[in-house]
């Protein structure tokens, strides 16, 4: 057994995408932990926005499950309504947004609405929440997903959160004036989106290119030099486990 879980290396890889001073639209689960980790390590000046109406520049005062939990509200800089934080997003003041999803395609379109069952029929999933808004309006989009062949599909069954679309210029044609997926972090590696299509740039330690190709539903495109994702440090793991003491999200 390795010293860290796939979820923990996803959190550390996601945290590295947060620059010091970034305004981050924080989602729940792994993105929340990534924000807490970045704040405690290399990005102490990062600012977090939460869609229920929280603006804070400190990690939560105690472990939380939802953004509405009291430790995420006490010592905040601002508590307000969803309209205000979404206006900051829509007005172009958010550097980085995180989303997760059930299904993503090679262009970074994310589906959290419905998926085809192998035997026919549709599986209904919860829906967008703020995911579509973040994908439409954040300056940079980061997607976090478990790496499985039925999740990374050639084309999603439903576009909940628009990515780059099937051809260059697609976002602009839709009326989306900024943003688009910058990186995908999975349980096996990290992808970037040169020319709007997912390209593997980094393998997590111990993962092979063939393993990734097998778990990916489209023809895998790899960068000319593949990096190895830095493993979480002992300090990273200490901080992650401080905010997820029961390993609710990272086991």
């Amino acid at each position, binding site marked *: 057994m390795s010293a860290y879980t796939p979820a923990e290396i996803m959190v550390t890889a996601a945290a590295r995408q947060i620059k010091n001073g970034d305004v981050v639209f924080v989602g729940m689960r792994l993105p929340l932990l990534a924000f807490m980790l970045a704040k405690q390590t290399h990005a102490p000046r990062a600012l977090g926005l939460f869609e229920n109406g929280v603006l804070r520049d400190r990690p939560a005062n105690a472990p939380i499950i939802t953004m509405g939990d009291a430790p995420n*509200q006490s010592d905040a800089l601002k508590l307000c309504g969803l309209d205000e934080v979404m206006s900051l997003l829509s007005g172009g003041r958010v550097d980085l947004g995180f989303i997760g999803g059930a299904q993503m395609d090679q262009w970074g379109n994310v589906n959290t609405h419905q998926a085809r069952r192998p035997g026919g029929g549709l599986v209904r999933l919860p829906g967008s929440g703020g995911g579509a808004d973040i994908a439409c309006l954040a300056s940079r989009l980061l997607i976090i997903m478990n790496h499985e062949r039925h999740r990374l599909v050639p084309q999603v069954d439903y576009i909940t959160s628009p990515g780059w679309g099937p051809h260059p210029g697609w976002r602009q044609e839709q009326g989306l004036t900024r943003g688009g997926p910058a990186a995908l972090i999975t349980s096996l590696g990290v992808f970037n989106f040169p020319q709007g299509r997912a390209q593997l740039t980094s393998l997590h330690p111990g993962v092979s290119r063939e393993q990734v190709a097998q778990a990916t539903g489209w023809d895998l495109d790899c960068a000319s030099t593949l990096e190895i994702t830095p493993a979480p440090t002992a300090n990273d793991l200490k901080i992650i486990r401080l905010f997820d003491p029961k390993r609710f999200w990272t086991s």
Partner: protein
Amino acid sequence: MGKARGKVKSLSQAVTDLVRPGDSVVLSAALEGFIPFAAAHEIIRQGIGPLTLVAPISNISIDQIIGAGLAERVIAAWVGNVSTGIGYNFRRAVEQGLPRPLEVLDHSNFSITLALEAGARGLPMAVGRSPLGSDIALQNPQFKALTCPHSGQKLLAIQAVNPDVALVHVQRADKEGNCQVWGAAGFTKQAAMASSRVLITCEEIVDSAVIRRDPDRTLVPGLLVDAVCEVPWGAHPAPVLGYYDLDNQYYLDYAAATRDPENARAWQREWVDGLSGREAYLEKLGSARRQGLLPRHSRPGAPLEYGW
């Protein structure tokens, strides 16, 4: 014109008076916090339906009303269980039409907020950029393509939403329904302003003088409110800042209990139909469990000067 006087009522009376079959009802407008579970359970207990339910993420409150067979339509951004993901009653209703077919009009959190805000302002539509490019905008007829007459930009015309009733849980209100909320409130304000009738449940009914000492804290003014019900713990298992925190175990237990339809009905009998009201619910929950949810670290706000 303000609303009638004599607004303080029992929750069961308020639900009887304000919620009718065929109504559209907005609830859980603050996202994960302040969810009006006591009011939702009273609707289920009284069997009022079919309803159209309007919400951002709804965190199992809508799932429970769907499970009771009282919802025919949902206008929402997300329906499920924030702690575990899937809302199983919602899934069964959409996939199998059980216990009754459910129409879903999908939104994003921002677009449903804007739809209610337009409704609050008495306008027929809101203008938005998100969720352009998504199938939400293509499949929900409440979205139409719009070209800005000033700039020529591609935008969305989002149809206004005006619910019949808003169910809102707050920390405190006076007898006239002037409601004070501290903490992230999602689109609570827009939901109350857009709705024809507003039912308030609160942790405490306070003297009007308390409201007047900090009027900046008043999120929903009494002029919008039809009924005020004092319901301590009325949002459990959702958190209410300063009163109690999230009861995550409840959400985990709910997910396990509702995976199977027979067990989901048993859950409803155990936690809603089989209980006479919120007092019985709290008794069933037990004082030790409630004690464990109380704030342990005090953070009182600084007093303010409103003098002249």
